[in-house]
């Protein structure tokens, strides 16, 4: 009995200790990590690996949002070789109905498709079911294999933040030996922000006005994931509606950045019409082979009160990118004749 009591007390003590030391304040920002987004996969049994001709089956597409952002609305499209499959029931095929191969990408009613967050730590997952009818094969064919492809078209975004050390003595005219400043200016790697497009590195440069104030400039290296197609926001729908890539806006993202909540202005980039405001200038960024480099700076110099390294401080740099995404999954299905 005494031993049991002792063990209970020990467990309570350890639990208390873990509770006290391990407590950190978690927010939704903590879930905006990685390079995930909504990804598609097929159920292992639907569609099956092979079907007989004239057979009806189901296709179950599983969508999982493993990124850090919610999808307010989107589309899910299923395509296949028209001479092998009809997406719909046999009855619908017989009545010459239009295939039912596109559905809304929603999770229940009035609820966005959540990404990772405090309330959905692993993100939402939802299955979408389609009917599949294998058409009669031509007489000369014994078997045919066709690829079934699912596309999800949806808007997405990436929010990233890092801390930038504001160098108060960029030309090294002053000194502060023996006293450790709050930070030292350096290039930084940025953690992925929970979306498929991310700023990888930020190089900082600081210019000083004759009055001693500081103008920071930043060089961003942006990289997009290769497992999804990227479009300017809104243009992803054109792909699901007509399966056409709008070449002009392919690999395009809209980019906004701010330092200490003051917007950065970017050199040589076009402002997004109807999207930008003076307080929130948004730029069109075109990726080449999945990446690009851009340069931005603060509009106004930063006032320097302590003009030596002791005045250095960490300022928050936030980056927001919005874009359209097309996610894909494919499965090969073989159709064989009844005579086999």
């Amino acid at each position: 009995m005494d031993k049991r009591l002792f063990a209970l007390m020990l467990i309570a003590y350890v639990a208390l200790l873990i509770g006290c030391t391990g407590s950190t304040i978690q927010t939704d920002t903590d879930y905006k990590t990685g390079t995930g987004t909504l990804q598609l996969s097929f159920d292992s049994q639907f569609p099956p690996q092979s079907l007989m001709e004239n057979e009806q089956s189901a296709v179950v597409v599983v969508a999982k949002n493993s990124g850090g952002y919610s999808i307010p609305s989107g589309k899910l499209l299923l395509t296949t070789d028209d001479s092998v499959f009809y997406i719909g029931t046999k009855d619908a095929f017989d009545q010459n109905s239009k295939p039912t191969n596109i559905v809304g990408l929603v999770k229940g009613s009035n609820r966005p498709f959540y990404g990772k967050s405090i309330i959905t730590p692993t993100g939402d997952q939802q299955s979408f079911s389609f009917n599949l009818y294998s058409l009669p094969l031509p007489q000369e064919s014994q078997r045919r294999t066709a690829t079934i492809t699912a596309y999800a078209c949806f808007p997405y975004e990436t929010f990233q933040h890092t801390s930038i050390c504001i160098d108060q003595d960029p030309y090294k005219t002053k000194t502060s030996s023996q006293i450790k400043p709050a930070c030292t200016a350096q290039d930084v790697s940025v953690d992925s922000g929970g979306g498929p497009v991310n700023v990888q590195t930020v190089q900082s440069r600081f210019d000083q006005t004759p009055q001693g104030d500081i103008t920071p400039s930043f060089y961003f290296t942006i990289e997009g994931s290769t497992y999804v197609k990227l479009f300017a926001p809104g243009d992803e729908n054109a792909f699901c509606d007509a399966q056409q890539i709008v070449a002009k806006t392919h690999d395009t993202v809209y980019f906004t950045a701010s330092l200490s909540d003051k917007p950065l202005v970017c050199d040589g980039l076009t402002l997004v019409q109807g999207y930008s405001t003076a307080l929130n200038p948004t730029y069109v960024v075109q990726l080449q082979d999945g990446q690009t480099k851009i340069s931005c700076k603060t509009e106004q110099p930063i006032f320097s009160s302590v003009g030596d390294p002791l005045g250095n401080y960490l300022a928050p740099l936030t980056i927001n990118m919005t874009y359209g995404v097309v996610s894909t999954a494919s499965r090969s299905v073989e159709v064989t004749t009844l005579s086999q």
Partner: protein
Amino acid sequence: MKRDHLHIGYILIFVLVLSLYAGCSGQTTASISNYRTGSQALDMQWRTNNQNVVYIGDELDLLLQLSNKGTADITNGELFLSGYDPSYLDLQIDPSPTFSLTGKSQYDPTGAFSDIYTIKAINVQGPKNIGQFQQSVLVSACYEYKTTATASVCIDSDPYNRITRQKACTMGTVSVGGQGAPVVISSVEPIVGQKSIRFNIRLSNAGNGVVYNPQISPEQCAEGLSFENTDRVFVTKVTLGGKSLECSPQNPIWLNSGSASLTCECNGDGCIDSNVAAYQTLLEVELRYGYRNSLSTQVNIVNTN
């Protein structure tokens, strides 16, 4: 019986003498030697814990206390703040960024303590869309300080022993003990000539702060120290047995990598008493400089929206 009484009497007398001796020797150590120790001047301590978490919209209060652990008095020193993004923290020092503190003395061997300063931000702000944001708060102090060092040096008027006679001391490099200031005289080397004596005096910054030119004000120090004004010390007095010596280089002396050498010379009559083979005398050195030290803490700004 009478013999026992005698024994007890001896023991009592012995105990009395011992306690008297101990009392007297303890008094001497405390009042004369002990307070001129260490290489600190201003000491700053947080009076809050180091895990400062503040929520957006709340007030941040950091408590600070100063004490003067050196022997010189500080008059009109200046505190200033840095290390944080002013877009989010509007920090003020309450009651005032100016401070004065007396140094250690034989009457006050611990030095003066200040009242508690509050470093306050009324309405803390944080970056939008970021859950937590870490900021440093550095409080720095700029003030003028003084080092007074006295070294007992041996002057040998006949270093080559041309006349054989008994010498009271041996001439050589001496290290100087505790001075109760961050810039210290680390060593004094006497070199005797025909009618002159020269001292190579080594200075160094033994504290954990930055030495600066005392000709710039504490306010200028707070705005940033240039190379020309950093690590600069003024030698205000060097005397040998009360007689002033000529020193080079000229003021201000540059503490290159934290230390410098100074040569001070006594020329002409009266510098050396040639009637005495070797004798002890006092070399007094006084330095004046600005000093800046800093103390930091971390503040975690939490955004719950």
